[in-house]
Protein backbone atom coordinates (compact mmCIF):
# COMPACT_ATOMS: atom_id res chain seq x y z
CA UNK A 1 0.00 0.00 0.00
CA UNK A 2 2.84 2.37 0.77
CA UNK A 3 4.63 1.75 -2.52
CA UNK A 4 1.85 2.94 -4.80
CA UNK A 5 0.01 5.21 -2.36
CA UNK A 6 0.74 8.35 -4.36
CA UNK A 7 -0.73 6.87 -7.51
CA UNK A 8 -4.37 7.98 -7.84
CA UNK A 9 -5.12 4.84 -9.90
CA UNK A 10 -3.93 2.59 -7.09
CA UNK A 11 -6.20 -0.31 -6.15
CA UNK A 12 -6.01 0.25 -2.43
CA UNK A 13 -9.35 1.65 -1.23
CA UNK A 14 -7.56 3.78 1.35
CA UNK A 15 -5.13 5.48 -1.07
CA UNK A 16 -7.73 8.13 -1.90
CA UNK A 17 -7.50 9.52 1.64
CA UNK A 18 -3.75 10.12 1.39
CA UNK A 19 -2.69 13.65 2.31
CA UNK A 20 0.08 15.06 0.10
CA UNK A 21 2.09 18.18 0.80
CA UNK A 22 1.80 20.61 -2.08
CA UNK A 23 3.77 23.49 -0.52
CA UNK A 24 5.85 22.15 2.39
CA UNK A 25 6.02 24.64 5.25
CA UNK A 26 7.47 24.29 8.72
CA UNK A 27 7.01 26.94 11.40
CA UNK A 28 8.85 26.29 14.65
CA UNK A 29 8.79 22.51 14.28
CA UNK A 30 5.08 22.57 13.45
CA UNK A 31 4.18 21.11 10.07
CA UNK A 32 1.82 23.66 8.51
CA UNK A 33 2.25 22.53 4.91
CA UNK A 34 -0.28 23.48 2.28
CA UNK A 35 -1.74 20.07 1.45
CA UNK A 36 -4.30 18.73 -1.00
CA UNK A 37 -6.75 18.94 1.92
CA UNK A 38 -6.06 22.66 2.33
CA UNK A 39 -6.35 23.13 -1.44
CA UNK A 40 -9.84 21.57 -1.43
CA UNK A 41 -10.90 23.79 1.49
CA UNK A 42 -9.69 26.89 -0.36
CA UNK A 43 -11.52 25.79 -3.52
CA UNK A 44 -14.65 25.15 -1.46
CA UNK A 45 -14.52 28.56 0.19
CA UNK A 46 -13.94 30.19 -3.20
CA UNK A 47 -16.89 28.34 -4.75
CA UNK A 48 -19.26 29.20 -1.89
CA UNK A 49 -18.23 32.86 -1.98
CA UNK A 50 -18.54 32.98 -5.77
CA UNK A 51 -21.93 31.23 -5.67
CA UNK A 52 -23.43 33.51 -3.02
CA UNK A 53 -21.89 36.73 -4.36
CA UNK A 54 -22.76 36.18 -8.00
CA UNK A 55 -26.27 34.85 -7.33
CA UNK A 56 -27.30 37.73 -5.06
CA UNK A 57 -25.43 40.48 -6.93
CA UNK A 58 -28.47 41.68 -8.83
CA UNK A 59 -30.94 41.19 -5.98
CA UNK A 60 -33.92 41.09 -8.32
CA UNK A 61 -37.45 41.04 -6.88
CA UNK A 62 -38.30 38.13 -9.17
CA UNK A 63 -35.29 35.82 -8.70
CA UNK A 64 -33.54 34.15 -11.59
CA UNK A 65 -32.19 30.61 -11.52
CA UNK A 66 -29.05 31.26 -9.48
CA UNK A 67 -30.74 33.69 -7.12
CA UNK A 68 -33.48 31.10 -6.48
CA UNK A 69 -30.82 28.56 -5.60
CA UNK A 70 -29.23 30.95 -3.11
CA UNK A 71 -32.63 31.83 -1.64
CA UNK A 72 -33.56 28.15 -1.33
CA UNK A 73 -30.38 27.37 0.59
CA UNK A 74 -30.93 30.41 2.84
CA UNK A 75 -34.57 29.52 3.47
CA UNK A 76 -33.70 25.86 4.08
CA UNK A 77 -31.33 26.67 6.93
CA UNK A 78 -33.50 29.52 8.23
CA UNK A 79 -36.63 27.37 8.48
CA UNK A 80 -34.66 24.59 10.13
CA UNK A 81 -33.42 27.08 12.73
CA UNK A 82 -36.91 28.48 13.29
CA UNK A 83 -38.20 24.95 13.93
CA UNK A 84 -35.49 23.82 16.32
CA UNK A 85 -34.18 26.94 18.12
CA UNK A 86 -36.94 29.49 17.67
CA UNK A 87 -36.57 33.24 17.21
CA UNK A 88 -33.85 33.69 19.83
CA UNK A 89 -31.51 31.62 17.67
CA UNK A 90 -31.65 34.11 14.83
CA UNK A 91 -28.34 35.75 15.71
CA UNK A 92 -26.58 32.40 15.33
CA UNK A 93 -27.93 31.95 11.82
CA UNK A 94 -24.69 33.06 10.08
CA UNK A 95 -22.68 30.48 12.01
CA UNK A 96 -25.02 27.57 11.24
CA UNK A 97 -25.43 28.65 7.62
CA UNK A 98 -21.65 28.84 7.16
CA UNK A 99 -21.20 25.44 8.80
CA UNK A 100 -23.90 23.86 6.64
CA UNK A 101 -22.64 25.32 3.36
CA UNK A 102 -19.02 24.48 4.17
CA UNK A 103 -19.73 20.82 4.97
CA UNK A 104 -22.19 20.47 2.09
CA UNK A 105 -19.72 21.82 -0.47
CA UNK A 106 -16.85 19.75 0.95
CA UNK A 107 -18.97 16.60 0.76
CA UNK A 108 -20.25 17.37 -2.72
CA UNK A 109 -16.83 18.29 -4.12
CA UNK A 110 -15.54 15.06 -2.64
CA UNK A 111 -17.96 13.20 -4.92
CA UNK A 112 -16.10 14.51 -7.98
CA UNK A 113 -13.88 11.65 -9.20
CA UNK A 114 -10.18 11.99 -8.27
CA UNK A 115 -10.85 14.95 -6.00
CA UNK A 116 -10.25 14.78 -2.27
CA UNK A 117 -12.86 14.49 0.47
CA UNK A 118 -11.75 16.75 3.29
CA UNK A 119 -14.54 15.57 5.62
CA UNK A 120 -13.26 11.98 5.43
CA UNK A 121 -10.52 12.95 7.88
CA UNK A 122 -11.55 12.82 11.51
CA UNK A 123 -9.31 15.71 12.53
CA UNK A 124 -11.26 18.07 10.26
CA UNK A 125 -14.68 16.95 11.45
CA UNK A 126 -13.48 16.86 15.05
CA UNK A 127 -12.23 20.42 14.69
CA UNK A 128 -15.65 21.53 13.51
CA UNK A 129 -17.43 19.53 16.22
CA UNK A 130 -15.12 20.86 18.94
CA UNK A 131 -15.82 24.39 17.73
CA UNK A 132 -19.55 23.77 18.07
CA UNK A 133 -19.19 22.06 21.45
CA UNK A 134 -16.95 24.69 23.04
CA UNK A 135 -18.99 27.53 21.54
CA UNK A 136 -22.26 26.10 22.82
CA UNK A 137 -20.86 25.39 26.30
CA UNK A 138 -19.41 28.90 26.64
CA UNK A 139 -22.69 30.36 25.36
CA UNK A 140 -24.67 28.36 27.92
CA UNK A 141 -22.51 29.56 30.81
CA UNK A 142 -22.70 33.18 29.61
CA UNK A 143 -26.46 32.97 29.27
CA UNK A 144 -27.34 31.11 32.48
CA UNK A 145 -24.21 31.33 34.65
CA UNK A 146 -23.85 28.26 36.83
CA UNK A 147 -27.55 27.61 36.27
CA UNK A 148 -26.44 25.99 33.02
CA UNK A 149 -25.47 22.95 35.11
CA UNK A 150 -29.22 22.34 35.56
CA UNK A 151 -28.97 20.85 32.06
CA UNK A 152 -27.57 17.74 33.72
CA UNK A 153 -30.53 17.39 36.12
CA UNK A 154 -33.68 16.46 34.19
CA UNK A 155 -37.07 17.35 35.65
CA UNK A 156 -39.25 14.80 37.40
CA UNK A 157 -36.55 12.27 38.21
CA UNK A 158 -36.82 10.54 41.62
CA UNK A 159 -34.09 11.74 44.00
CA UNK A 160 -32.79 8.19 44.44
CA UNK A 161 -31.97 7.95 40.75
CA UNK A 162 -30.33 11.37 40.50
CA UNK A 163 -26.70 10.34 41.11
CA UNK A 164 -26.98 7.84 38.27
CA UNK A 165 -28.87 10.13 35.88
CA UNK A 166 -26.51 13.06 36.39
CA UNK A 167 -23.49 10.90 35.59
CA UNK A 168 -25.19 9.57 32.46
CA UNK A 169 -26.18 13.08 31.37
CA UNK A 170 -22.64 14.39 31.88
CA UNK A 171 -21.18 11.52 29.86
CA UNK A 172 -23.72 12.00 27.08
CA UNK A 173 -22.95 15.74 27.03
CA UNK A 174 -19.20 15.16 26.84
CA UNK A 175 -19.56 12.57 24.08
CA UNK A 176 -21.40 15.05 21.85
CA UNK A 177 -18.34 16.29 19.95
CA UNK A 178 -17.15 12.70 19.45
CA UNK A 179 -20.46 11.42 18.08
CA UNK A 180 -20.92 14.56 15.97
CA UNK A 181 -17.50 14.25 14.35
CA UNK A 182 -17.37 10.46 14.00
CA UNK A 183 -20.81 10.42 12.35
CA UNK A 184 -19.73 12.73 9.53
CA UNK A 185 -16.27 11.25 9.16
CA UNK A 186 -17.44 7.61 9.21
CA UNK A 187 -20.20 8.23 6.68
CA UNK A 188 -17.89 9.94 4.22
CA UNK A 189 -15.03 7.51 4.63
CA UNK A 190 -17.21 4.39 4.48
CA UNK A 191 -19.01 5.66 1.41
CA UNK A 192 -15.88 6.52 -0.52
CA UNK A 193 -14.18 3.25 0.46
CA UNK A 194 -17.22 1.34 -0.77
CA UNK A 195 -17.21 3.22 -4.10
CA UNK A 196 -13.53 2.44 -4.56
CA UNK A 197 -14.04 -1.25 -3.74
CA UNK A 198 -16.87 -1.54 -6.25
CA UNK A 199 -14.78 0.34 -8.80
CA UNK A 200 -12.11 -2.33 -8.25
CA UNK A 201 -14.71 -5.06 -8.89
CA UNK A 202 -15.57 -3.49 -12.26
CA UNK A 203 -11.92 -3.53 -13.32
CA UNK A 204 -11.35 -7.06 -12.02
CA UNK A 205 -14.41 -8.60 -13.72
CA UNK A 206 -13.61 -6.80 -16.94
CA UNK A 207 -15.77 -6.22 -19.99
CA UNK A 208 -17.87 -9.38 -19.59
CA UNK A 209 -18.78 -9.46 -15.91
CA UNK A 210 -18.18 -5.86 -14.94
CA UNK A 211 -21.62 -4.55 -15.81
CA UNK A 212 -23.28 -5.73 -12.60
CA UNK A 213 -20.87 -3.91 -10.23
CA UNK A 214 -21.05 -0.93 -12.60
CA UNK A 215 -24.82 -0.77 -12.09
CA UNK A 216 -24.32 -1.02 -8.33
CA UNK A 217 -21.65 1.63 -8.51
CA UNK A 218 -23.99 4.06 -10.27
CA UNK A 219 -26.67 3.41 -7.62
CA UNK A 220 -24.12 3.91 -4.84
CA UNK A 221 -23.02 7.24 -6.31
CA UNK A 222 -26.66 8.34 -6.08
CA UNK A 223 -26.82 7.14 -2.49
CA UNK A 224 -23.57 8.88 -1.66
CA UNK A 225 -24.81 12.21 -3.03
CA UNK A 226 -27.87 11.79 -0.79
CA UNK A 227 -25.63 10.94 2.19
CA UNK A 228 -23.35 13.91 1.43
CA UNK A 229 -26.32 16.26 1.66
CA UNK A 230 -27.89 14.42 4.59
CA UNK A 231 -24.76 14.50 6.73
CA UNK A 232 -24.35 18.24 6.21
CA UNK A 233 -28.01 18.63 7.18
CA UNK A 234 -27.68 16.41 10.25
CA UNK A 235 -24.57 18.28 11.39
CA UNK A 236 -26.44 21.57 11.10
CA UNK A 237 -29.58 20.22 12.82
CA UNK A 238 -27.62 18.80 15.74
CA UNK A 239 -25.76 22.10 16.08
CA UNK A 240 -29.16 23.78 16.29
CA UNK A 241 -30.39 21.30 18.89
CA UNK A 242 -27.29 21.90 21.04
CA UNK A 243 -27.77 25.66 20.62
CA UNK A 244 -31.37 25.24 21.73
CA UNK A 245 -30.22 23.38 24.86
CA UNK A 246 -27.77 26.17 25.66
CA UNK A 247 -30.31 28.96 25.09
CA UNK A 248 -33.40 27.49 26.72
CA UNK A 249 -32.09 24.64 28.91
CA UNK A 250 -34.79 21.96 28.76
Amino acid at each position, binding site marked *: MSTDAHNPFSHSPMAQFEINRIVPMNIGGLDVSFTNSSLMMVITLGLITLFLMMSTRRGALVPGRWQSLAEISYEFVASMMRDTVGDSGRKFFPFVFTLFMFILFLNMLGMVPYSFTVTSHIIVTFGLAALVFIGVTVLGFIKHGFGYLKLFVPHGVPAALLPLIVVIEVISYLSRPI*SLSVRLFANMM*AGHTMLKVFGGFIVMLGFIGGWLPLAFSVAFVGLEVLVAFLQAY*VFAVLTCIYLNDALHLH
Partner: protein
Amino acid sequence: MEAEAAALLGKYIGAGLAAIALAGAGVGIGHIFGNYLAGALRNPAAAQQQFPNLLLGFALAEATGLFGLVVALILLFVV
Protein backbone atom coordinates in the same frame (compact mmCIF):
# COMPACT_ATOMS: atom_id res chain seq x y z
CA MET B 1 6.43 -15.90 14.51
CA GLU B 2 3.58 -17.85 16.11
CA ALA B 3 2.51 -14.85 18.13
CA GLU B 4 2.58 -12.63 15.04
CA ALA B 5 0.35 -15.02 13.13
CA ALA B 6 -2.05 -15.17 16.07
CA ALA B 7 -2.13 -11.36 16.23
CA LEU B 8 -2.92 -11.17 12.51
CA LEU B 9 -5.66 -13.77 12.92
CA GLY B 10 -7.13 -11.87 15.84
CA LYS B 11 -6.99 -8.64 13.83
CA TYR B 12 -8.99 -10.03 10.94
CA ILE B 13 -11.50 -11.88 13.13
CA GLY B 14 -11.96 -8.74 15.22
CA ALA B 15 -12.52 -6.63 12.11
CA GLY B 16 -15.17 -9.09 10.93
CA LEU B 17 -16.87 -9.06 14.33
CA ALA B 18 -16.87 -5.26 14.42
CA ALA B 19 -18.56 -5.15 11.01
CA ILE B 20 -21.55 -7.05 12.50
CA ALA B 21 -22.56 -3.68 13.99
CA LEU B 22 -23.80 -2.73 10.53
CA ALA B 23 -26.60 -5.30 10.89
CA GLY B 24 -28.02 -3.09 13.62
CA ALA B 25 -27.84 -0.09 11.32
CA GLY B 26 -29.78 -2.03 8.68
CA VAL B 27 -32.48 -2.99 11.19
CA GLY B 28 -32.69 0.59 12.44
CA ILE B 29 -32.95 2.18 9.00
CA GLY B 30 -35.59 -0.34 7.93
CA HIS B 31 -37.52 0.30 11.12
CA ILE B 32 -37.48 4.06 10.60
CA PHE B 33 -38.54 3.99 6.96
CA GLY B 34 -41.15 1.29 7.61
CA ASN B 35 -42.71 3.20 10.46
CA TYR B 36 -42.63 6.42 8.47
CA LEU B 37 -44.42 4.72 5.60
CA ALA B 38 -46.99 3.19 7.93
CA GLY B 39 -47.65 6.57 9.52
CA ALA B 40 -47.68 8.37 6.19
CA LEU B 41 -50.25 5.98 4.72
CA ARG B 42 -52.52 6.47 7.70
CA ASN B 43 -52.23 10.23 7.68
CA PRO B 44 -50.79 11.47 4.36
CA ALA B 45 -51.48 15.09 5.29
CA ALA B 46 -48.97 15.01 8.14
CA ALA B 47 -46.32 13.07 6.21
CA GLN B 48 -44.61 16.02 4.54
CA GLN B 49 -43.90 17.82 7.84
CA GLN B 50 -42.21 14.78 9.29
CA PHE B 51 -39.90 14.23 6.33
CA PRO B 52 -36.97 16.14 7.93
CA ASN B 53 -37.35 14.01 11.04
CA LEU B 54 -37.26 10.91 8.85
CA LEU B 55 -33.95 11.98 7.35
CA LEU B 56 -32.58 12.87 10.78
CA GLY B 57 -33.57 9.46 12.15
CA PHE B 58 -32.08 7.73 9.12
CA ALA B 59 -28.75 9.51 9.57
CA LEU B 60 -28.64 8.88 13.33
CA ALA B 61 -29.42 5.16 12.89
CA GLU B 62 -26.87 4.78 10.12
CA ALA B 63 -24.18 6.49 12.17
CA THR B 64 -24.35 3.99 15.05
CA GLY B 65 -23.64 1.15 12.65
CA LEU B 66 -20.84 3.07 11.02
CA PHE B 67 -19.10 3.42 14.39
CA GLY B 68 -18.67 -0.36 14.19
CA LEU B 69 -17.35 -0.08 10.65
CA VAL B 70 -14.82 2.50 11.79
CA VAL B 71 -13.58 0.06 14.43
CA ALA B 72 -13.24 -2.60 11.72
CA LEU B 73 -11.31 -0.24 9.43
CA ILE B 74 -9.06 0.88 12.27
CA LEU B 75 -8.28 -2.77 13.01
CA LEU B 76 -7.54 -3.48 9.34
CA PHE B 77 -5.51 -0.44 8.40
CA VAL B 78 -4.23 1.31 11.53
CA VAL B 79 -3.48 -1.26 14.22
